[in-house]
């Protein structure tokens, strides 16, 4: 399956303004009001790599409890994807742990 197969499927609330962001350098579209997690998972299937080499992660609890969805922006900022909203021009890296 290619990496950009969307994991999440939009079932409702699709008439919101579009927001453009960059995921691993690729220009992608999301909708205003999307959490960063939604923006990433409607464009792919991963948020980050596990630091322990056991594969990709895509969040789990979506309510700020499990802390499994912290993502890294290109400028080094770290955000919890399920409780942060996407903003236009955001540049997110989902594979930063792989390079370390």
């Amino acid at each position, binding site marked *: 399956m290619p990496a950009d197969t969307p*994991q999440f499927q939009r*079932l409702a609330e699709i008439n919101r303004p579009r927001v453009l962001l960059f995921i691993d350098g690729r220009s992608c579209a999301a909708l205003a009001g999307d959490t960063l997690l939604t923006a990433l998972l409607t464009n792919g299937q991963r948020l980050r790599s596990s630091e322990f080499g056991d594969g990709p992660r895509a969040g789990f*609890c979506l309510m700020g409890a499990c802390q499994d969805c*912290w993502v890294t922006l290109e400028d080094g900022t770290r955000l919890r994807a399920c409780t942060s909203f996407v903003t236009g021009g955001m540049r997110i890296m989902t594979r930063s742990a792989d390079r370390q």
Partner: protein
Amino acid sequence: MSDKPPIVVGAGPAGSRAAETLAAAGLAPIVLDEAPASGGQIYRRAPAGFTRPYRALYGFDAAKARRLHLAFDGIKGSIDHRPDTLVWDLKRGTLHCLCAGRSREIPYRDVILAPGARDRIIPFPGWTLPGIYALGGAQIALKYQGCAIGSRILFMGTGPLLYLVAYQYAKAGGDIVAVLDTTDFAAKRRAVPGLLRSGSTFAKGLWYVAALHSRGVVVANGIRPIAAEGKDAVSAFVYRDAAGKERRIACDAIAFGFGLSSETQLADLAEIPFAFDSAQQQFLPEHDVTGRTPVRGVYLAGDGSGIAGADAAELAGERAALALLEDRGYEVGRPRVAALERAMRKIAGFRRALETAFPFPADIAAGMPDETVLCRCEGVTAGEFRSSVRALDADEINRAKAFSRCGMGRCQGRVCGPAAAVVLAAALNLPPERSGRLRGQPPVKPIPMAATT
């Protein structure tokens, strides 16, 4: 001292009603909540710009959600509501909060803790694959974002949320491949007399199951999870059916959970003693029906003090606020207090029936295969955890955490803790409560180093 406003932590059903009750008495509580808007998880509000009506978002509970939101919105001018605010520590008269990247201290005289609950999880092999979410998380994706967690979704676990979320997905147009319940049918039948007394709640449960059946969704009872399969994301779920036969269902998403677990870290930091609740199979902070705890000035309300559901949380929030007012010397209406306590006791009876209908399947946790990632934060497998427990004689969960790193990660054991306690007890042939509980540590959630300097 008496000029300090009371503090309410959490703005879900319990926190909202507590704040409303304090405001009605002329006090202006500070309400600290992690979410951007009040409502908690169950009545979580959609972000600005979303248009689905209450009926679509909350179903049968639309009227309750609207009432709670309106009640909170109605007092906004007379309380100090601080959304997007994490309370990360609390000790002897001082709360530490993080808001907009900055930490602040708030001195308090009295505080009502209403932090709510999270999904109770039992890991199984493959559960960290992308596409696999907690049941509550799957519900948030739909309610808060209008998204399904995948295009072919499997629901697994136990508890009322299993059927509710599956039903909500079906209704929203999601493709559900199966609903797999770990509880056997006999346990549910035994619980029917107790559940019937709840009236509408039981009827709602029956409605969800019937609606799923009528849509042709496969519903199976008494299953045991074996593994999720997939390479970069989940592609199938393998389980044992009630007859013992291994089955595999292709899917690209799984939502699972085994009831709820209370958020108790702040109660712990407030030095409230804990006791093991054998019905809920978890350690809970001690409190009475009024919400008072052995620690003066600290009150508990809602699912954070033991799982009783949203209706009970509203009652408990109001009751705890009345207790706080009484302790400040206010006159409170005795008939109202009596009515609240009566209603809370009635719901408690229904909860006991629910625990019978959907018992926590501790055997699944106890028998978790060694290769299962038990702690997803630190990547600790059940096998590694068991060997450190046995080899180092770690007969208590905090000791086992120190040796294995299980529960030491960013979530502080919120996800792995309940199952890890069962794995530990089973490894040493101890009763479950002998494992103890993971101690709350500040900060209760990750905060940036820069925020505290």
